């Protein structure tokens, strides 16, 4: 009997079920409880973990900014300045450093941060003189604005 095509009632069985299951379980290995072993529970947990990780990317930015602000606040208090005064006076003296860089400077370059705090303090004093002195004294040196064209 010549058979030209495979008999139609023979159906192929799934042979790589193990690897399909491992693809999911490999992301669940560090979970707690049965979710790291049992596929049925792991599928749900892995999906939730992925969803949470995508949503958390927006919060990571907020969290890191709050961390930097805390660190800059601590460092500027060591030099006798509060955070709002420090930041506002730095901006008024046209030092446009962002909070990430300021936090890194405060940790790794303490002397630079001390000089920045001194600059902010001096600008603050000049601001007070300009607001309260009214007119007769000349303008402060650090209050001058440089125009880049």
């Amino acid at each position, binding site marked *: 009997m010549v058979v030209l095509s495979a008999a139609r009632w023979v159906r192929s069985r799934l042979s790589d079920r193990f690897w399909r299951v491992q693809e999911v379980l490999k992301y669940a290995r560090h979970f707690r409880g049965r979710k790291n072993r049992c596929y049925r529970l792991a599928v749900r947990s892995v999906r939730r973990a992925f969803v949470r990780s995508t949503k958390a990317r927006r919060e990571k930015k907020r969290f890191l900014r709050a961390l930097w602000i805390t660190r800059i606040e601590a460092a500027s208090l060591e030099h006798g300045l509060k955070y709002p005064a420090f930041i506002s006076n730095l901006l008024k003296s046209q030092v446009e450093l962002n909070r990430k860089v300021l936090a890194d400077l*405060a940790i790794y370059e303490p002397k630079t941060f001390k000089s920045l705090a001194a600059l902010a303090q001096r600008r603050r004093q000049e601001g007070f003189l300009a607001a309260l002195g009214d007119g007769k004294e000349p303008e402060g040196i650090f209050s001058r604005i440089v125009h880049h064209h």
Partner: protein
Amino acid sequence: RYVRQLQRLQLLFSPTAADARGAREFVEEAAQDFARQHPDVVLYVSPHSGPGPAPVLRAEYLNGTVRDELIASKTSEEIAQLAIKLANQSGLDIIRIRKPFHTDNPSVQGQWHPLTNKPSILTVQGPRLQPQ
């Protein structure tokens, strides 16, 4: 000057298996052109007779990483493109890099410690006064 990070490419396939057809065609036609265009990569063709493991393109890099790519049931052009892709890679692992920067000396002025901004009387030990 540019040093290609790919050391050698090994084509392991069986001359009779059905899924190694693309590999055989690649060896017949495009392997010589590939070897000529990439003179600093050594191309080894090792056919193993009889039923064996699946046809594989093994890439070894200068830092020791070995990367196997399955070429079962791929056309000759696809294998050529794969070979070019592997030749342009370096051997670093393909994982998420946490930070795009790295320094061995992060601090020039000395890292902050709780006693950096305190008066130096706390840290400096003067000459010890001998009991007379």
